[in-house]
């Protein structure tokens, strides 16, 4: 079968070509944001073509230049793009071998490829990709018959090739923010406080005075921007503008709506599925509620967008998660036809989902079409990134379980309250350009991400899921893992509660509900490396907890254990992860992603909560939104189970859920009582100790 994104972009030359002697051009639609996708995908292409990795020229993602593979999301780059590249490379290799066989009057099966050169019966044939290239037409669709290598023949896949993008980043470059700054027009945007707000007063004279240099002020509806050749002048202008603008109909965000339980008070669209209601009476029943607040992406770099409009064509440089999807929004904002819009990826800081990148690109585009022939660079401030980029939604989850006489979980229900986890396709500048107009319809879709891993990853006879998709007080969109990590946090903490009711050890309880050998191997190995057998009694102040998930019910199998202590606050000591991610393309890259996910989840678990107030988000600086620091990060060990003959599975999001839950379970073990709401701050620990 032809992989989906190859079928959608069938011409092989869009993926691979041989542009000059000794070089291979490789193109794919996924973008790099520090997760290592570019390097791992390049490894797959070099592997199947049998060329040295150094021969590759990886094309920067740009519309027209790379296949359209949508967004770079959902831990799916290796599974989707990797599958397409592998198939495309196998097809290309087969076309070249067929041409070589014709010239050499032999069978393709007599030929092999070593670093791009064809060998016949093991001896040099004098032919290689580059010599044959003029006579091999790659502007053809895949046959669907080419076969890729089996893992025993891999020499590059499975090795820890260093990241292609990292060197420039340790020598002071590499980011969209570092594109040449000379000769550009710098811009800052004064953000509209909510989509209904209209501008009442803007004291332009005061703002110009504060800027200290010539600036241009653009006012269109509620869209207010400051432009100048001097970046300093526009920074001073936008800071002054905050004090010199008054708005009507500004949004009012109630502070208490930042608590997950408050989601139950908001209008909701329900969805329901699963087994009919249980009427068994001979079972023990247990209920518990869990919550996670709104979480900021917290990208280290506030968003940046660069755009230029020349001769009717708009070029936009962006660190958005894909170059094709954003074109529709850009077309709507500028009134240009999509084919007059060129989008080029430029690397940004880690985004972990839908942050301010798309909005900043749209800001730049809206300004560029007003200033033809100028390169417009919009840099967001930290306050803008925290205050106006979408956030990951809070979730409130109510669980009910029934256990049979043996203690086994046989009936599981979850009811979820969540705003949409996917809110793409609309930019802040749109509501600013037409203030007071209705916001876009809330994206209540059949899939909004809130039900991922809603049910714990065990063999449970009857399960049912209800989701209430609420309209949030602030904009929400995709954050690493969507609803999956939160559901896993709730579900896996709940499993520990049931184990306790059943009088079972949490690890043994989980093993008792899964027969899948790969899952069992993960759990058993996790027990070994975390010293589970030596786990002490509950309530000592020292905690050891674990959790397990099968990512999205079909992906990687992941177990995490956490050792910590609790006195006045939680101190993380050690975290372990065992993951079965199938065939691993780049083991060090996979470990880096898994470890990074664990530390991010630890930060969510102990520290993070978006605060609301005023016209929206009130936590607009790092001091208001603390994250885990170097001297709070525990040791982390990650082990990958070797599965060379299994399909590769994504890694970017897989470790967050089990880490949240393992921390929850370890805190409960340390305290001897359970806290069911994140984050586990000093205040919350103190309340629990007082209540206990």
């Amino acid at each position, binding site marked *: 079968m032809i992989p989906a994104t190859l079928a959608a972009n069938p011409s092989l030359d869009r993926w691979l070509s041989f542009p000059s002697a000794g070089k291979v051009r490789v193109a794919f639609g996924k973008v790099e*944001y*520090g*997760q*290592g996708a570019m390097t791992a995908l390049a490894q797959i292409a070099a592997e199947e073509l049998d060329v040295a990795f150094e021969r590759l020229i990886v094309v920067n993602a740009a519309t027209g230049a790379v296949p359209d593979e949508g967004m770079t999301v959902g831990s799916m780059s290796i599974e989707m793009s990797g599958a397409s590249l592998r198939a495309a490379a196998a097809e290309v290799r087969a076309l070249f071998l067929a041409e070589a066989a014709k010239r050499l009057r032999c069978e393709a099966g007599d030929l092999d490829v070593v670093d791009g050169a064809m060998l016949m019966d093991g001896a040099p044939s004098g032919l290689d990709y580059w010599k044959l290239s003029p006579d091999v037409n790659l502007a053809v669709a895949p046959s669907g018959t080419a076969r890729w290598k089996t893992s025993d023949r891999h020499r590059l896949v499975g090795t*820890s090739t*260093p*990241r292609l*993008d*990292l*060197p420039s*980043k*340790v*020598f*002071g*470059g*590499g*980011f969209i*923010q*570092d594109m040449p*700054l*000379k000769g550009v027009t710098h811009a800052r945007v004064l953000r509209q406080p909510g989509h209904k707000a209209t501008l009442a007063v803007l004291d332009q004279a005061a703002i110009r005075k504060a800027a*200290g*240099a010539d600036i241009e002020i653009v006012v269109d509806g509620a869209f207010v921007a400051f432009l100048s050749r*001097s*970046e*300093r002048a526009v*920074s*001073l202008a936008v800071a002054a503008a905050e004090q010199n603008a008054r708005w009507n109909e500004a949004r009012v965000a109630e502070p208490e709506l930042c608590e997950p339980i408050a989601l139950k008070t908001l209008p909701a669209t329900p969805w329901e599925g699963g087994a009919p209601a249980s009427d068994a009476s001979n079972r023990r029943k247990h209920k518990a509620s869990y919550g996670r607040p709104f979480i900021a992406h917290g*990208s*280290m*770099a*506030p968003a940046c967008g660069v755009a230029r409009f020349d001769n009717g064509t708009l070029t936009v440089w962006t660190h958005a998660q894909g170059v094709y999807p954003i074109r529709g929004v850009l077309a709507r904002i500028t009134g240009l036809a999509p084919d007059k819009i060129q989008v080029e990826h430029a690397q*940004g*800081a*880690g985004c*972990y989902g839908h942050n301010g990148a798309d909005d900043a690109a749209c800001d730049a585009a809206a300004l560029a079409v007003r200033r033809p022939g100028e390169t417009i660079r919009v*840099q967001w*401030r*930290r306050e803008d990134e925290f205050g106006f980029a979408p956030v990951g939604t809070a979730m409130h989850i109510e669980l009910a379980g029934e256990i049979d006489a043996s203690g086994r979980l046989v009936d599981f229900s979850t009811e979820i309250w969540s705003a949409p986890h996917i809110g793409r396709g609309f930019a802040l500048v749109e509501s600013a350009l037409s203030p007071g107009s209705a916001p876009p319809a809330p994206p209540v879709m059949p899939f909004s991400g809130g039900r991922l891993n809603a049910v714990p990853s065990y063999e449970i006879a009857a399960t049912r899921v209800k989701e209430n998709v609420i309209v949030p007080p602030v904009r929400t969109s995709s954050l690493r893992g969507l609803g999956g990590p939160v559901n896993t946090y709730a579900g896996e903490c709940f499993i520990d509660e049931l184990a306790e009711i059943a009088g079972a050890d949490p690890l043994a309880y989980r093993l008792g509900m899964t027969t899948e050998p790969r899952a069992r191997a993960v759990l058993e190995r996790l027990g070994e490396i975390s010293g589970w057998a030596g786990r002490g009694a509950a309530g000592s102040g020292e905690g050891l907890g674990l959790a397990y998930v099968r990512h999205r019910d079909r992906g990687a199998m992941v177990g995490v254990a956490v050792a910590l202590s609790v006195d006045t606050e939680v101190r993380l000591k050690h975290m372990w992860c065992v993951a079965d991610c199938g065939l691993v393309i780049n083991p*060090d*890259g996979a470990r*880096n*992603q898994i*470890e*990074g*996910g*664990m*530390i*991010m989840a630890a*930060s969510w678990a102990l520290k993070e909560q978006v605060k609301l107030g005023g016209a929206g988000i009130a936590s607009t*600086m*790092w*001091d208001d939104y603390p*994250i885990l*620091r*170097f*001297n709070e*990060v525990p*040791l*982390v060990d990650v082990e990958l189970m070797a599965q060379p003959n299994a399909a590769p599975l994504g890694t970017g999001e897989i470790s967050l859920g089990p880490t949240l839950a393992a921390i929850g379970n370890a805190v409960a073990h340390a305290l001897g009582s359970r806290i069911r709401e994140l984050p586990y701050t000093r205040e919350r620990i103190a309340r629990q100790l007082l209540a206990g």
Partner: protein
Amino acid sequence: MVRDITLTVNGARRTFRADTRATLLDVLRSDLGLTGPRFGCGAEQCGSCAVLIDGEDKPSCAVEAATLEGKTIVTVEGLGTPEQPHPLQTAFLEKQAGQCGYCLSGILIGAKALLDRNPAPERAEIADALAWHLCRCGAHNRILDAVALAASRLRAAS
């Protein structure tokens, strides 16, 4: 108000005219074209913009350049180049100590300042020295390993 300011930046004496309200980060990026120090928050809260000021690691995003007349500034570009990397840069690449890398310019500077004052730091001392630098990707342990590796190599070489 505009005035002339003279700084020694990465070993070279540089005089330029700048608004007295311009921050050191503004001047390094806009006037001197050094992209290593990065804009992260503008409020000395994240460490992305760290540089050495007379040998001490400091944020550059809020301090006014005009207050630093005559001082010596080192940015990450002044540590090493791809051709002649600093042992810290080599160690960071060897350990693949970074994901997105946006925090690394500041962290490399913080590590340089630490190793200059303490050539043999314990792991906890490295963590404490870097605690004012934020890393969102969770590359902390690799970064601690890389700093320790560079420290051991620098000690062996001296």
